[in-house]
């Protein structure tokens, strides 16, 4: 009997207290349940009629009921008071707040940061190198012989016969390997230059990230695994990929990596020129001739290298149709990112 009563009172109380919004309502609830003649006290009065051996148990239940109800009541009371205690003022709360201006990193920096953090998570170090490089580091040590058509792949700004503006970040590979014995696992971001006519699709200055891993048992399979993991982290889990044979003097075998176009899911659109594929990077196994320039034993060590263009990635990712906008530094552009 008594426990049913307890249940009923608790339920009724909870219904009422949860809908109470004003101090007046609260006061009414207090009187109804917690005052001397309230419903909880009434139940305590009924305790007299309970058989002696059940009394201790019933008493416990009642005490717990009183405790629950008064706790809930106090909770609700303080919550209502804190809401209502706001002094009524003349503030127009809809006025804009006093914002603090936070600047932003250039979108190319943000894109690079994202790439860097993925590779750092895979145990890569980060190295940088100079932009004004020697012909030796930029070409010769990377297995571009003088008077070889491979040099036509990268139109070059020369400052003298033997010095030039680096055409790729690959010379940093040479610098790192000359400085350090294997194992080497590093990415090398930086600015590069190409002597190409400026247009919406190409600019004479851009940025690359180079990657290099050399150790005793590095395989093409590991290169694929690493780059696929990068692509999944950067572009999304669902994409498809393919590796196509290509040619770079400093890798052998060489490959280009395509991913399925994220704009059209590989169905074909303007971005992927209706092929369904987007070329995102070049890669390959480090050529033994490069190892001999840095005195690594190519019988003992194998390695892979890769390189990607940051502008190209940002163009695709943010739907920008003119590469020149990155270097115009129009505040209205900078503020978008």
């Amino acid at each position, binding site marked *: 009997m008594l426990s049913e009563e307890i249940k009923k009172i608790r339920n009724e109380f909870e219904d009422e207290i949860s809908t109470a919004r004003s101090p007046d309502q609260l006061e009414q609830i207090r009187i109804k349940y917690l005052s001397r003649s309230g419903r909880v006290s009434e139940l305590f009065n009924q305790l007299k009629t309970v058989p002696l051996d059940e009394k201790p148990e019933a008493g416990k239940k009642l005490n717990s009921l009183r405790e629950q109800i008064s706790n809930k009541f106090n909770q609700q009371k303080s919550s209502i008071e804190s809401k209502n205690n706001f002094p009524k003022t003349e503030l127009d709360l809809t*006025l*804009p707040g*006093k914002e*603090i201006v936070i*600047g*932003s*990193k250039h979108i190319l*920096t943000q894109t690079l940061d994202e790439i*860097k953090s993925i590779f750092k998570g895979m*145990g890569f*170090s*980060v*190295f*940088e190198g*100079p*932009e*004004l490089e020697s012909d030796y580091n930029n070409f010769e040590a990377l297995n571009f012989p003088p*008077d*070889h*058509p491979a040099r*036509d*792949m990268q139109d*070059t700004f*020369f*400052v*003298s*016969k*033997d010095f030039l503006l680096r055409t790729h970040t690959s010379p940093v590979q040479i610098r790192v390997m000359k400085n350090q014995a294997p*194992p080497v696992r590093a990415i090398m971001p930086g*600015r590069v230059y190409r*002597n190409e*006519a400026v247009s919406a699709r190409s*600019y004479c*200055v851009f940025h690359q990230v180079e990657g290099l891993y050399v*150790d005793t*048992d590095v*395989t*093409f*399979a*590991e290169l*694929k*695994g690493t780059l696929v*993991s990068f692509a999944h982290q950067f572009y999304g889990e669902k994409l498809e990929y*393919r*590796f*196509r*044979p*290509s*040619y770079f*003097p400093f890798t*052998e*075998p*060489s490959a280009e990596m395509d991913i399925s176009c994220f704009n059209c899911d590989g169905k074909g659109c303007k971005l992927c020129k209706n092929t369904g594929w987007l070329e995102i990077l070049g890669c390959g196994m480090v050529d*033994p001739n490069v190892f001999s320039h840095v005195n690594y034993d190519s019988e003992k060590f194998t390695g892979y290298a890769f390189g990607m263009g940051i502008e190209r990635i940002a163009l695709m990712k943010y739907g920008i149709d003119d590469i020149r906008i990155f*270097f115009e*530094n*129009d*505040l*209205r552009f*900078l503020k978008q990112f």
Partner: protein
Amino acid sequence: MKISLNWIKNYIDLSEISVEEIVSKLTMAGLEVEGFVDQNILYKNLIVGNVTEVKKHPNANKLTVCKVNDGSQDIQVICGAPNVAEGQKVVLAIPGSIVPKTKLQIAKVKMRGVESSGMICSADELGLGDDHSGILVLDNELKPGTPFSEALGLNDVILEIAVTPNRPDALSHIGVARDLSALFNRELKLPKIEFKESETDIHTLASVEIEDKLNCPRYSSRVVTEVSIKPSPEWLQKKINSIGLRPINNIVDVTNFVLHETGQPLHAFDLDLLVKHKIVVKSTAGKNKFTTLDSKVRELPENTLMICDAEKYIAIAGVMGGENSEVTESTKNILIESAYFNPAAIRRTSKYLGLSTDASYHFERTTDPSNTIWAAERAAQLIAEVSGGKVAKGTIDIYPNKISSKEIKLRLSRITRLLGYEVAKPNVIKILNKLAINVIKDLGDTLLTVIPTFRPDIEREVDLIEEIARISGYDKIPTISKINITLDRKTDDSRFHEIVRDTATGLGLYEIINNPLQSHKLASLTGIAVGISNPLSNDMNYLRTSLIPGALTVVSNNIKKGEKNLALFEIGNVFNLKVDRPIKSFEDFTETTSLILLLTGMKNVRQWYSRDESYDFYSLKGLVNSFNRKISLDNVLIDSYNTDEKSFYDNYFEKSLKDSVIGAGGQIKKNLLEIFDIEQNVFCFEYDLGKLTDIPQNKKLYSEPLKYPKVSKDMAFVFNKDVTFESVRKFIIQNGSELLKSVTIFDLFESKELGDDKKSMAFNLEYFDLKRTLTEEEVDNDFKNLITLVTKNFDAQLRGN
């Protein structure tokens, strides 16, 4: 490079293989197909029409109204071509068809009030040449209504292949066919060469001598006599057209055909124009002039490899023939040159002359030294066939030092080690054989192979491994999902720049990235600039010496677009020349990383809660100090002011560490701003970030928060105007007790009441001790003492009471 599938089918059976499969296999084997044109689709809905009536357009002078019969009915078409006439067979594009060149869809339209239900096409519109002066008139025998592609046999598929520089062997139809034979496991069939030789021995007609054997290792030659020069037969013209070349005459067309069939460039000389019928190959001794067959006079540098007769130059070897020996309509006897030249020599000449030809393109990528005779004979055969000429008996072949085939060992275990998976031995051998690479010994794990001379790219074991990987398909290589990571210390060269960028953006600045290439005018404003030898333009012929000119350009451009309030930063490398001669080493210039902070315009503008506020000198100084504090450098750097009179700043200040200036800035001088067309004040500060990176960062150590109360005291004085804040602050600190820990300024003003040469400064002094509570008395004594001293020392008056 354009490759015709119809042409390729002469060397390999591609039946039951779709175009899409061919395209995909080639691309996935490294011969990237960038695009292809299927003529059956390209010329869909274009038919042969018969012009039955031509009348003037009633409302337009230059247009005619034609009736064109499509085989079943007459269709009315408006035509703008001057050469349209009744009775012509023409190419009719009916509504719904797409013009091949322009990709415009033909529809029924009204032109100046008269209906037109199609279009008569020009050769240009059909993509068949550049003649757009009038419509293309077809052979009169053709039946109206016949599909155009069928009528002209234009049912080819043309592939556009991007061949990488390492694959000269693939720069021909036979070369691509060879890869296809490996990819689809089908047989490669080379054309048979059969021709009748005349009685006359070639050695009685011509002779060849090589003087420069280094740059011309082999010169082979055939002679064809009694040729008649005329247009090529249709089959040959069609082949030449299909790869985007223009037919010229039967001789030139054959040499072009053989080049694109085998990859061996050929040249045909008019034998009768060669003095003593002699060929001499040698390099020029001094500088020379020579007129090439395009009638241009070329300035030749020293050491240019030339083809000569007994007296004069007749061709620039491997690049272009001369006007003085070219085949003309009156040519009777021909000498075919089929040579192997040193690739680097041809490339140097071609680069120097800025003249790249089909021939030089092939030669500089390395042609096949073993194929010269085959190519010469193939050309002789075809020339005899299409010109009625007679092939002289025998071949001249000067080949003093034979270039032999390389032998390379291939270890199967090495394939596994490099690729990460095992390719079965029979597969390896099959792939090699299809690529004409012979396995001459099988030693178990090691195969001894012989590389054909047309594969100069295969020099080492690793190059063979690439061939195995390429033909098997890169998709066969597993994509592993676990890697090992070494637990060594990781380096991050960019970490400090990241901190700088985070700090700068936190301070409200936007990052800009400028092109380091500038005009000489801008680059030399701030240093001695490094020049570019081969610049794109005069706006970009020097490297920046500072980040200031680039940043001011950005300010100027933004102001023009209405963005006048700017807070910017840039991190970038700057370059300064140290010598007045061309750079020979890294010692001859400096490349350092700079950071620039820049403020201009208004800090607060039109906000409901504050007054408008412009950036000023103190905004910049505050920014610089906040920046330094964030990167823990505020305690180590020393400020100095107006120490450099030559700087481009008014109100110059610099930060230095010991004697080394770390950064400097101020308000940009008006005369510098004028160069950039800027009329508002610009404040900026440039750091040498390299020096900043090298400073050992202050180690941060915990200090216990103060347990005892601070005592704060204020004092204000009227000073003469020339008394600086810093001098008073220093004086107070030096003369105060040990308990005085800081002096800050909290008020500054000037007024008429104070007098024109006076100002008021109010200071807050903070006293405390780490170990005890101070007594009021000890603070008061020091404070009063300081008031007296300041008053005396600076001739100041204490304000208030």
